[in-house]
């Protein structure tokens, strides 16, 4: 099941490469909206942890079994972000995050073609913009 918050506590942990090196961390986010959207509709934002910013080009998004860079997302118009499946964000940070509590903030928007172009992302600003949650990391 989904957690109600956009930022999911489940899945928050450091990422480790095959040779055992801690390469960064991952956090899962759900699509807070009434319908799924094409990956190209996502307007990816930054991830902030304890005030430190990780920009979109340091972040990869996983849907299903496939991992996308933000450039790849913008070109993928036939794969849908399903409402029931949170995306996993992989953030590059050598050494990862320390054990303990972290203030996590995630920003992403998306376009809605049936809204006037000048407020293309307005719906998403009210639902998915600027989300914060305190998460506990073990390792």
């Amino acid at each position, binding site marked *: *099941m*989904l957690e*109600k918050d956009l930022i999911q506590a489940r899945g928050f942990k450091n990422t480790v490469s095959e040779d055992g090196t801690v390469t960064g961390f991952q956090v899962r986010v*759900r699509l807070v909206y*009434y*319908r*799924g*959207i*094409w990956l*190209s*509709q996502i*307007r990816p934002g930054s991830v902030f942890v304890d005030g430190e910013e990780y920009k979109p080009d340091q972040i990869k998004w996983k849907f299903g079994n496939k991992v996308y860079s933000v450039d790849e997302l*913008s*070109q993928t*118009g*036939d794969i*849908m972000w*399903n*409402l*029931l499946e949170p995306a996993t964000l992989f953030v590059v940070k050598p050494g990862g995050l320390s054990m303990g509590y972290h203030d996590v903030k995630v920003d992403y928007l998306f*376009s809605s*073609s*049936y*809204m*006037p*172009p*000048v407020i*293309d992302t307005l719906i998403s600003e*009210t639902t998915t913009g600027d989300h914060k949650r305190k998460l506990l990391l073990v390792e």
Partner: protein
Amino acid sequence: MTNTIKRGVTAYSYNKEFGLTMNLDDIMRDISDTGAKGIEILANSHIPEYPYVSDEWIEKWKRSLNKYGLEPAEYAQWVDSREYAGRELSTQESIDILERDFKLAHKMGFKILRTKLGVIDDTLTPVKNWPDFIKGALELAEEYDVYMCPEIHSPSLLDSKMVWDYCNFIEKEGTDRFGLNVDFSLFQEGKNALVGYDDGFPHPDQEHSPVSDFEQFIKYTIICHAKFMKVDENFREVVIPYNKIMALLRKHNWGGWMISEYEGAKADVPGHTSEQIKRHQIMLKKLLGE
């Protein structure tokens, strides 16, 4: 012969609970409890493998319809014209998207599609090439036996250029494969404060259409979204004049699906939407003399 108005419910109504406290099976059970026979689903929301759907899932869907005694009433689809940043979809891309949905809707047993178009301005004028790609999809709609219906929804007004453009298109092409989905938000009379919205979102208080404007568009109307914001304990919608709407539809012997769509407050409170849907269905039963 009297045409029949059939009761349905859109799964959209439950969107604030979907995935949190209800799955599609729960939604279908909830709808069947009301005696409504039709279900609307949103392709993007309720089909887990959309748009590449396995035959196994289609079989599962058919078993669920059978289990809950529901008919596929309406399939909501989008032509997301601004799907890619910085450009609009071409006419051919739009036709391909429509065709992909026609095939899937047909497999799932749907005939009526709520076809949502992208818009280009504040008054929700649809993209300029809509007549080209809708015309280009008419034969395909015939082939897959589906009907495309743009939803006419507040803040649009019914008696407006956009709606007349749709009706003139229907006349010019001589087609019945394109028609209107009339959403009753158009006819809201009472203030939003009556339904418990205080921030004016998503339906700010604004000009609405009088029910009498509906008369000239009934012949173009394939399906109705029985939008509601709040049904009280006496089974009366507090801001939308259902008595007038229903009287007009009966006068013109309109038949088709009437799909309950809850868009009121507290939709995230578990069970609230279910209760509102039940109240609304009781109201419809009374109005229909069932």
